[in-house]
């Protein structure tokens, strides 16, 4: 049965399957951004083993550049403001 699914592919599929709940269960957005980056890398690997270099490249720039930048900026903003509010409350 394994003939159709190369072991390497099976491993990468399993990594992706493990990554998704980790992303969802990481409730702290900053940490989640990091976990999501790793999940993105597993998706890139998956695309590579599925012979899809173009989607892999797009996924790489998205999970390596686009998502981190906007997510980190949003997280920083939300946290920074909360901190400045807390200090002004004191």
């Amino acid at each position, binding site marked *: 049965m394994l003939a*159709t699914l190369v072991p390497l592919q099976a491993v990468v599929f399993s990594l992706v399957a493990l990554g998704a709940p980790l992303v969802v269960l990481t409730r702290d957005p900053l940490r989640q951004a990091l976990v999501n980056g790793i999940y993105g890398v597993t998706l890139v690997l998956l695309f590579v083993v599925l012979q899809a*270099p173009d989607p892999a490249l797009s996924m790489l720039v998205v999970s390596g550049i686009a998502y981190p930048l*906007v997510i980190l900026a949003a997280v920083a903003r939300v946290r920074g403001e909360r901190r400045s509010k807390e200090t002004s409350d004191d």
Partner: protein
Amino acid sequence: MSYLPYAVAAWLCLVGLAGVATSKNLIHLAICLTVTQSSSYVLLLTVGYVKHGKAPIFKGVKLGTTAVDPVVQALTLTDVVVSVAVVALILALALDAHRLSGTVDPDRIADVSG
């Protein structure tokens, strides 16, 4: 075993949905949405995969060599861009919600109901 890839795609969809429905933070929720969407790329690429197929790029490769489906790859490219656009919008809304109410908890920004 040869159905594992499809099961993974279904799993991603359900896990993402569960995350979206129970999220307490709009930024977290936006990322969960991308997990749900990753289900559709994984499914598309899985569906178009051909045993022993090469990437559909014929530079230095003889035409007619077995290659995987290029269509699903084109669709995936579009899908990835869609997800970036949607995430950016939801994050912008999250920042607005935070500016106006001091929270990014979707349960607590419910201003109107009924």
